């Protein structure tokens, strides 16, 4: 299994477990694509969290406002009808848990990684840009006619990281 496949597998496991445990929702495994950082036109709520260590990168969740409200409603057992502080907080925590669990899986292969505190943005017609040219691994999870995108980019950050690449067949393909 190369690094891309390992990440796809970890994101799938993490997202399915978090949705099942915290939201009571059984999702089907996400479909993966590998892409540049082009914005998703459906995105109204965007949550970003940083990863740092000998490998560094970011994880993000993006979805429509309606789906963010559903996440909040299921997670907090409340009725969220518009994006407010509580909805943004629920999305931040969802990001923390999904990417945090992926980080834990990655640490077994890549060594210790740090996780930042998530930032959530709500709006329309905004674009995001990550410095560098690393490809994103993107997984789309469908949920009752809507969808959530979970994305992750990761690249070697110091010389120690290159020794660890040997652990994965084709791992350098992730860092363009």
């Amino acid at each position: 299994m190369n690094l891309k496949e390992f990440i796809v597998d970890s994101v799938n496991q993490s997202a399915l477990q978090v949705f099942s445990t915290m939201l009571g929702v059984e999702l089907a495994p996400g479909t993966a694509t590998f892409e540049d950082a082009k914005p998703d036109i459906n995105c109204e709520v965007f949550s970003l969290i940083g990863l740092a260590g000998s490998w560094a990168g970011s994880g993000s969740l993006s979805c429509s406002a309606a789906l963010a409200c559903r996440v909040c409603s299921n997670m907090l057992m409340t009725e969220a009808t518009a994006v407010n502080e509580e909805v943004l907080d629920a999305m931040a925590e969802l990001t923390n848990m999904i990417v945090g669990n992926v980080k834990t899986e990655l640490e077994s292969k890549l060594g210790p990684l740090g996780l930042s505190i998530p930032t959530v943005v709500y709006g329309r017609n905004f674009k995001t840009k990550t410095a560098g040219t690393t490809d994103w691994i993107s997984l789309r999870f469908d949920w009752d006619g809507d969808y959530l995108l979970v994305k992750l980019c990761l690249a070697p950050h110091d010389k120690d990281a290159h020794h660890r690449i040997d652990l994965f067949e084709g791992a350098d393909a992730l860092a363009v």
Partner: protein
Amino acid sequence: MESHILVVDDSAAIRKILQRVLRQTGMVIGEIYEAGDGQEALELLKTKTVSLVLSDINMPKMDGLQMLAALKNSTVWRHIPVVMITTEGGETKVGEAVKLGAAGYVRKPFTADQIKEKLVGILEPAMQL
């Protein structure tokens, strides 16, 4: 005897979930206090008596490990069991927490049963002291 619990997490969502989960455990729980970071928790402990602290690790201002160290270095608070609730599953931070004196940890995402199982083992012996 009722146990008063302090929940420390920068996420209001997690604090709300833990409030609900703790009430669902069926344990005799009195007050559930909340703090958004370690600093706020230490301030709150100056005026409230608690049987147990449930704390996140990654928080702004003062994180869970700094708060845990402060509690274990205090003659007044060192007896209070602290359970870390965190996405940190790696050995680094969890190991550090255990070394500092954490009574245990629960990984996020968590179920009510996992929280109950952890707390029963810690609170019941503590109540017999």
